[in-house]
């Protein structure tokens, strides 16, 4: 797959279909793959990678890149294409300046999952069939690939590549996913337990704003949190209220536009499960206003931009949905 992606990128540049290619390259460590723009086939052949650590969602970079001179080719995994469509729906990407290449994805692997398997001092990892051969300082180990998948990929919602000009590998379909299981587990707790859970998670927040900056849905040019009058533009949250406020508003601002790509949790340096906030909103919207998947198509109306006269009243929450 790596070779096919690289050859495709080089061919696109050499044939003049595009002047730049947006892809991935290895960062400081082999597992630390970072988005990059390549301008020559030479660069592509020496630096570009497509391996199981290519987690970053490239769609958001197209907002800025598609405004520049010339056409840009981009490589998108299935979940990235949902963000790609959603951003087009919001008129954020100039589609005619983008050549989208969909890449088949078998789920991404992350270091946290490898560490959870008890692997330390990992120096390299390669795929062989359904297994992953991991080289460590203490020798080689073989682990089943699915056990090394990142948490978000274990509950993958769809392998479908939306709105691509070309596809490398196979087109996939929607998958049955129990991605709301964790949300349901939290809902089953008492309010005191939920409060304690979120306090212990959110108190780790260092307000680095990585979740906001990486989120494809969070793409306002002027963010409410950069407003000096907002009182929360500080780099570090001053107390528990600010932590709550930041995360409530962050999740709420992307309600109905979040495609559940899981980037917020991936980039969080503190390991806060931020996607659980977004998923709760998605689950509620699905239950209350009908099933909706952001970025799945161009025509459906986002639930927060619509209403019906028969919508349930807010009292179903305040009085307790289940009579609690």
């Amino acid at each position, binding site marked *: 797959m790596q070779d096919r992606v690289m050859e495709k990128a080089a061919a696109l540049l050499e044939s003049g279909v595009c002047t730049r290619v947006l892809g991935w390259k290895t960062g400081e460590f082999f597992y630390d793959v970072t988005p990059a723009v390549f301008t020559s086939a030479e660069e592509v052949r020496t630096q570009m990678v497509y391996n199981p650590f290519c987690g970053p969602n490239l769609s958001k970079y197209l907002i800025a890149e598609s405004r520049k001179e010339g056409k840009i080719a981009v490589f998108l995994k299935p979940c990235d294409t949902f963000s790609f469509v959603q951003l087009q729906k919001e008129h954020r990407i100039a589609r005619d300046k983008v050549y989208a290449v969909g890449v088949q994805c078998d789920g991404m692997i992350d270091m946290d999952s490898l560490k959870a398997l008890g692997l330390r001092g990992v120096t390299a990892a390669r795929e062989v069939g359904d297994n992953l051969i991991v080289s460590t300082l203490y020798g080689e180990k073989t682990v089943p690939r699915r056990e090394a998948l990142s948490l978000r990929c274990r509950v993958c919602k769809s392998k479908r590549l939306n709105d691509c000009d070309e596809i490398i590998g196979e087109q996939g379909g929607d998958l049955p996913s129990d991605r709301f299981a964790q949300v349901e587990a939290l809902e089953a707790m008492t309010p005191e337990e939920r409060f304690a859970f979120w306090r212990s998670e959110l108190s780790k927040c260092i307000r680095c704003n990585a979740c906001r900056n990486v989120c494809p849905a969070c793409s306002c040019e002027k963010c409410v949190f950069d407003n000096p009058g907002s009182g929360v533009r500080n780099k570090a949250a001053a107390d528990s209220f600010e932590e709550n406020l930041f995360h409530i508003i962050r999740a709420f601002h992307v309600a109905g536009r979040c495609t559940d790509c899981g980037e917020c949790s991936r980039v969080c340096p503190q390991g806060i499960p931020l996607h659980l906030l977004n998923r709760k909103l998605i689950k509620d919207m699905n239950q209350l206003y009908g099933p909706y998947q952001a970025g799945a198509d161009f025509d459906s109306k986002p639930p927060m931009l619509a209403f019906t006269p028969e919508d349930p009243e807010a*009292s*179903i929450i305040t009085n307790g949905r289940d009579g609690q």
Partner: protein
Amino acid sequence: MPVNETFKPTIVAFCCNWCSYAGADLSGTNRLQYPANVKIIRIPCSCRLNPMFILRAFQRGADGVILCGCHPGDCHYTTGNYYARRRMTLLFSLLDYMGIERGRTRVEWVSAAEGAKFAATMNDFTETIIKLGPNRRLEDLRCKTE
């Protein structure tokens, strides 16, 4: 937490200009009693209520926040309260998910003719908040005056 008899909650009521604010006026002219701890803030329409306003109110010392607007279908701007209803439902659900007490927030539709309903709602809501006690889970220590 034991019910504190001397606890005087601060309650912020966001009232839409066209229905609920006039409803509050009517309950005043009708001399209906409702607690003095209810602070009314007039907004042009219930859908003007940014979720941030609610959190801000809690930050600055509110123990309960209630939104009052025109009945669904009666919005002065035709559809504002329908959007507000979806937003508030989701926001309250998220607050509940984060462990904030359910009773601290409420939405009630009060028309300009329902002065009695306004007073009854405020009495009932204040009672709920007194039972819940002071807002601790969404407080900002820097904004405490005592």
